[in-house]
């Protein structure tokens, strides 16, 4: 078949062109993932787990916050239901990334399965906000961003584990890195909400941050009632109940693309689909960008 070689070169050229376009955008993620991955590997090894387990978790779970939580889970009593619920809960934000990427990941062929599987905060932020140059294959561009990001994370975790086996310094307090990560994401969300609320002149401490406040208050209440070992599931249930009961009131305080129960047909036409997602995406994109400085 005389056509084959030329076809191959063309496909190869398309792939490498997409890689060239994708790589620069992943450099901030490279810095962030390698740093956090190394910390994860260090924590795993200092908690007594083998090196290969860090690599495996980085590869197959591939969501930083859950992997850090998994360290604590693996050190406590066996509770598969709680593990599943925690994974669903921590991953719930992926659902909203998915909703935002529905259109962009359309018509990219079989790569779509990998693109969905490799969804993370940072990969979403890059792929969602990327201005893909004309002539660059969209599917391959998204694919390279996703693959490079996963490689950074996995390599970081492995390097951290290997170094961790030789580390002799006191690692007490290292697990606090997880708390700082959640705190940064929380503060970033808080600032994004403040900005969005100010833009439409409805800023108020309580009403602009009602979801953050409901999250913290419900968790503290459940922690007081159920104790430190069993409060996660009740907390999530309480958060869902509170957010659902007060939906019409809370939705009215949401800035810009307000999602009101009555607007059923109108909102369905909304191009953004997810209401606040663009603002959140911008925040995450900035988060990823800032990582490089």
């Amino acid at each position, binding site marked *: 078949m005389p056509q084959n070689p030329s076809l191959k070169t063309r496909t190869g050229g398309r792939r490498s062109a997409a890689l060239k376009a994708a790589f620069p955008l992943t450099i901030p993620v490279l810095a962030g993932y390698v740093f956090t991955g190394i910390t994860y590997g260090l924590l795993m090894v200092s908690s007594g787990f083998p090196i290969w387990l860090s690599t495996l978790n980085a590869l197959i779970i591939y969501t930083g916050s859950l992997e850090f939580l998994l360290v604590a889970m693996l050190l406590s009593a066996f509770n598969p239901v709680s593990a599943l619920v925690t994974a669903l809960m921590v991953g719930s934000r992926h659902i909203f990334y998915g909703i935002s990427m529905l259109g962009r990941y359309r018509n990219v062929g079989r790569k779509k399965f990998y693109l969905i599987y490799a969804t993370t905060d940072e990969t979403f932020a890059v792929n969602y906000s990327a201005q893909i140059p004309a002539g660059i294959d969209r599917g391959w561009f998204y694919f390279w961003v996703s693959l490079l990001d996963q490689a950074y994370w996995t390599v970081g975790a492995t390097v951290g584990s290997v170094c961790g086996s030789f580390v002799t310094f006191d690692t007490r307090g290292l697990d606090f890195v997880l708390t700082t990560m959640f705190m940064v994401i929380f503060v970033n969300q808080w600032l994004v909400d403040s900005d969005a609320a100010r833009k439409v002149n409805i800023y108020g401490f309580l009403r602009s941050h009602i979801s953050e406040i409901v999250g913290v208050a419900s968790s503290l209440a459940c922690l007081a009632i159920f104790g430190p070992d069993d409060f996660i599931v009740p907390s999530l249930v309480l958060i869902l109940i509170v*957010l659902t009961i007060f939906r019409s009131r809370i939705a009215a305080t949401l800035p810009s693309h307000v999602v009101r129960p009555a607007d059923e047909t109108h909102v369905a036409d909304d191009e953004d689909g*997810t209401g606040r997602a663009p603002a959140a995406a911008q925040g995450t994109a900035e988060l990823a960008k800032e990582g490089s400085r």
Partner: protein
Amino acid sequence: MTMTPLQMGITIAMCVIGTVATRFLPYVIFRGNKPIPTYVQYLGNVLGPAVFGLLIVYCLRNVNLFAWPYGIPEAIALFVVSITYVWKRNMMISMAAGTVLYMVLVQTVFTA
């Protein structure tokens, strides 16, 4: 280690299943051009920030406010994380500053 290798394998598998489910769910539900229900859109707006609030509380669940050191190292470190983030808007700087400061505090100043 309190778990057997099999139990650890099951726990990890649960994490994989849960995570993969959240990643694929929207693509399974909203195949084609079906509109997204407003309730789902609403949850998309409000659930994320709430969950991160819960995760912070989860990380601090074993801090005892009524006994030495009264959660002081955690409070100081998280304050520094917030201030540096508002100031620099750089995730890595804030995480590094908060973690290193916390490690120094619990290893030198607030030793049990």
